[in-house]
């Protein structure tokens, strides 16, 4: 299992990255090391939370997306649009205006990603009655599912194995178009993603092996396109009208914090931001949290409104979505219109399959070997300075020690131990420089006035 590689949409642009350790220090799973002067991500450790991308001072991280032109390979081009996209626009811009612009850009259909939340919610409530271990945890946020797999393997059985609405919505709309007599190969379904982890699930779902989505477009890319059209249109263009509201109030709020928890039964808690989630899961694992039925856990602060690919401020986005939801609620216009047969199809295909634990914490599969390795780590910790400076290319002294027992680093990677070795003539100063260059790249310590914060900084 640990040998398997997982698709990650987060990539490092090696030309932009200058190896500053910001990403390495914020990574909640210790998945980043600096090698040859640039950040490298350990694929099996990464949970796609995007913290590295948020922390990067030079935008060296990017989220790989499909070429927008790919949509024109299909006759029917469906955009699956999360509500947070709409939430970025001020209330003076109507939903139908945004949809019209998206259609102008080439989509034939624009459908809300949360269109199927009522069905998903029903399935989740049914599952809550099952004898699964409590607290049950939503599978909504793919980063959280991956986090549990790698760091809390004992809690995988608490996850409710029901797909988030995006997958079901893609399935449902493809079904609708097929029923209209459209050819399967003519239908292209594109997901507009607010984050890196959603892409990763679309490209390699956790349990299930296939995806209903043909391509992924980054939300910031599309936001810029829509914003550009809005800014350059003539005054009279604003003449679209609502027939039915674009989305239910529940659907609009679903991806925000408390969007799910407020529609579940029993004692429900909603926790956002990955470090908050980690400290809470530690307690769940120790059985310190009792009598909680349901946990909504999201990797980003303010949930999807804080997604790494959103352009607008997350607090404004939350406020705007809530206001839109309130207005639709007050109008009483929204009607749920998924037929009973479609509901059944959605429910039948909403199971994510088996979510396997794949702990990235084990030092060795063999317990005897693991014990020996841990003893070595503890011995090395007697010598390492405990400063956690990151100058060895690992996030802390302890992670360096663990890298050493995994044969991925050497004690001499520590700059302080280098000095001690030089002092006792165990290490030649020239060799010491070569070691540093291996972590930080050649000529890294030479004068460079173009680096961030320096005299000729151009960032």
């Amino acid at each position, binding site marked *: 299992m640990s040998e398997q590689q997982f698709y990650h949409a987060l990539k490092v642009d090696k030309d932009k990255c200058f190896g500053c350790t910001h990403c390495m220090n914020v990574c909640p799973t210790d998945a980043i090391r600096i090698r040859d002067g640039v950040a490298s991500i350990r694929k099996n450790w990464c949970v796609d939370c995007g913290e590295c991308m948020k922390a990067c001072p030079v935008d060296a991280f990017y989220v790989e997306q499909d070429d927008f032109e790919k949509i024109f390979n299909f006759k029917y081009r469906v955009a699956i649009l999360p509500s947070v996209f709409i939430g970025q626009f001020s209330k003076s811009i109507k939903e139908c205006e945004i949809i019209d612009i998206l259609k102008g850009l080439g989509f034939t259909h624009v459908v809300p990603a949360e269109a199927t939340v009522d069905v998903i919610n029903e399935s989740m409530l049914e599952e809550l009655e099952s004898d699964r271990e409590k607290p049950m945890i939503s599978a909504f946020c793919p980063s959280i599912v991956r986090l549990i797999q790698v760091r809390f*393997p*004992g809690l995988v059985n608490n996850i409710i194995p029901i797909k988030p609405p995006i997958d079901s919505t893609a399935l449902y709309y493809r079904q609708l178009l097929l029923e209209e007599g459209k050819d399967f190969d003519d239908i292209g379904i594109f997901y507009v993603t607010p984050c890196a982890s959603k892409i990763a699930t679309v490209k390699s779902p956790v349990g299930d092996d296939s995806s209903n989505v043909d391509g992924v477009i980054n939300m910031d890319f599309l936001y810029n396109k829509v914003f550009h059209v809005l800014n350059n249109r003539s005054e009279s263009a604003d003449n679209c009208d609502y027939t039915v509201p674009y989305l239910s109030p529940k659907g609009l709020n679903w991806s925000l914090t408390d969007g799910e928890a407020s529609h579940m039964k029993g004692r429900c808690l909603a926790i956002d931001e990955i470090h908050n989630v980690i400290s809470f899961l*530690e307690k769940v*694992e*120790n*059985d*310190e949290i009792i009598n909680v039925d349901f946990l909504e856990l999201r990797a980003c602060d303010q949930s999807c409104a804080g997604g790494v690919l959103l352009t607008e401020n997350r607090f404004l986005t939350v406020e705007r979505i809530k206001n839109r939801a309130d207005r639709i609620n007050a109008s009483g216009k929204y009607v749920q219109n998924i037929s009973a047969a479609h509901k059944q199809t959605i429910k039948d295909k909403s199971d994510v399959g088996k979510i396997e*634990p794949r*702990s990235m*914490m*084990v*030092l*060795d*599969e*063999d*317990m*005897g070997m*693991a*014990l020996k390795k*841990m*003893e070595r780590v*503890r011995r090395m910790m007697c010598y390492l300075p405990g400063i956690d400076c990151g100058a060895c290319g690992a996030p802390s002294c302890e992670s360096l020690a663990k890298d050493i027992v995994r044969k991925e680093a050497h004690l001499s990677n520590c700059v302080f131990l280098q000095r001690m070795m030089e002092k006792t003539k165990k290490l030649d100063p020239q060799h010491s420089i070569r070691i540093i260059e291996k972590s930080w790249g050649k000529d890294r310590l030479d004068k460079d006035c173009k680096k961030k914060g320096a005299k000729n900084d151009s960032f």
Partner: protein
Amino acid sequence: MEFNYEVEGGNFTKAGNAASNVKKVLKQLNVDPKIIKRIVVALYEGEVNVVAHAYKGNVLVDIDTDRIYIKIQDEGPGIPDIDLAMQVGYSTASAMVREMGFGAGMGLPNMKRNADTIDITSKVGEGTIVELTTKLTS
């Protein structure tokens, strides 16, 4: 491999530190999560007992490939009647401790249920020693 943790009487914010650390260690040693959970729950209860009842205490953990041995030793009031203390629901916790959500009389019974073996020795007015042993493989 030995680990040592100090436990401060009366400080509930730090109760569970030893349990969290031991959990981290056992995860790295590839111990079955179900076994880890039993060990951590028992140790956490033990820590809470020291914090709730004693003045100070010490947790010694010894791990080898087949078992974990945990010795929780405290300086405190001691337990006058161990059989009574082992009964579910029996508690001598103060009103303040109960207000904090502890003191339900589940501590020792929970430890007994989660460990393979439990040994308790206590001297009134001096302190208590609880020893827990659990196999690391099922």
